[in-house]
Structures are given as structure tokens and as C-alpha cells.
């Protein structure tokens, strides 16, 4: 059973398009995250949600809109895709605010904008 699953694994699209990445966790966690990993492997937090409420938005352009329909899901919609959006996007979840417990990560979605 995959704890944190995200789809699709690969996404190739043209500039200007709109795309979504879906994430689900079956761990019963309260908190979910989106991270972006660039070509140099740097992992940067984008958003965190707790019980479906947005907690953190790390100055991400408003072309990126996360949506959490319930505690187990956190989807990421991206409008008007740009070349610089090409990266690997990771969904993660943790218990509560993460204090004292680790985050579990999905397998990643490699987004390529051409």
C-alpha cells in the first residue's frame, strides 16, 4: 500500500497550458505539503495545509493553486505554465505540525514545460 501517492508521475506540456497534479495519503495525517525540487536537487516548500486549511504559502506565484477537498487529498493546479515551472513536485504528509514526526513523501511528479 502506497502511503503517499501522486499522479501523474510524468507530465510534459506546452507553455501556457493549465495542468493539475493529484495527491492522496492513506496515513490519516492532518497535514499535507507540496515541495518543488529543482535541477540541482534543492527541495523548497511551496504550501502546507492542515485539516484542509492553508497554513503556509511560501511566496508561490498565484498561478499555483492548491486545493484540499478533504484531509487525505491535496491537489496542485498550475495555470499558464512557464518554462521555469519545470521541476519535480513532491507531495508529503505528516502528523500535525510536524513537530517530532517525520514527513512522508510521494514518488514525485516530473513536470516538463516545453
Amino acid at each position: 500500500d502506497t502511503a503517499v501517492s501522486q499522479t501523474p508521475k510524468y507530465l510534459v506540456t506546452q507553455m501556457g497550458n493549465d495542468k493539475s497534479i493529484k495527491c492522496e495519503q492513506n496515513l490519516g495525517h492532518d497535514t499535507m505539503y507540496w515541495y518543488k525540487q529543482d535541477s540541482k536537487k534543492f527541495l523548497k516548500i511551496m504550501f502546507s495545509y492542515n485539516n484542509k486549511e492553508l497554513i503556509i504559502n511560501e511566496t508561490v506565484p498565484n498561478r499555483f493553486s492548491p486545493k484540499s477537498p478533504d484531509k487525505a487529498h491535496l491537489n496542485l493546479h498550475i495555470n499558464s505554465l512557464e518554462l521555469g515551472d519545470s521541476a519535480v513536485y513532491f507531495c508529503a504528509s505528516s502528523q500535525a505540525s510536524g513537530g517530532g514526526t517525520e514527513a512522508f513523501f510521494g514518488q514525485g511528479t516530473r513536470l516538463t514545460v516545453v
Partner: protein
Amino acid sequence: GESVGLHLPTLSVQEGDNSIINCAYSNSASDYFIWYKQESGKGPQFIIDIRSNMDKRQGQRVTVLLNKTVKHLSLQIAATQPGDSAVYFCAENDGTYKYIFGTGTRLKVLA
């Protein structure tokens, strides 16, 4: 947000030797620290964690050391194996709904 100009450090070790990967963290308020391993094409996987009230924690073949005075973490891997080849990240958390990751170190195990 991009790590422009930053270079992913690489540590090369002989199979069977011990590896030490270092990490400097930034937030004095961080009270929980994790080491993650990321293999090619996969997400980060938990290896070991440590809370700020400890300075050492051991797992199976891995040990994490925490020096709060200089805000430094290290991961020691004993008897390094080919399967240990990956990128290793430290992460810090201060209970505010985010894990801040270090830049990562690529570990290459030489046969």
C-alpha cells in the same frame, strides 16, 4: 527560490568504509531534525531523526549527531554498501508546518 549557484556536494567512499555526511542548519528554534535518503527517481525516504534534547541517536548502521551550539548535524553510515548510493538531505522542523531542507549531498559508493 532556485538554488542558483549552489552545487550539490559529492562524497565518494569505498564499499565497506564508513561515511560521514554533514549538514549546517539555520534556525535556532528548530527542535526536530531528520535525515532523508533520496534515490534516483524516488521521493525522499526517512532514515533517522533526532530531537533537540539529544545529541546522538543510533539506528541500524546509521548514527546521527547533533551539535546545537554550532547548529550542525551529521549522519554516519557504517560499512557503506552500494545500496547506500543516493542523495542525502537533512531537514529541520520547528513545529510550524514546514520542513526546511539542506542542499543535499550525493553519496557515491565505489566498488
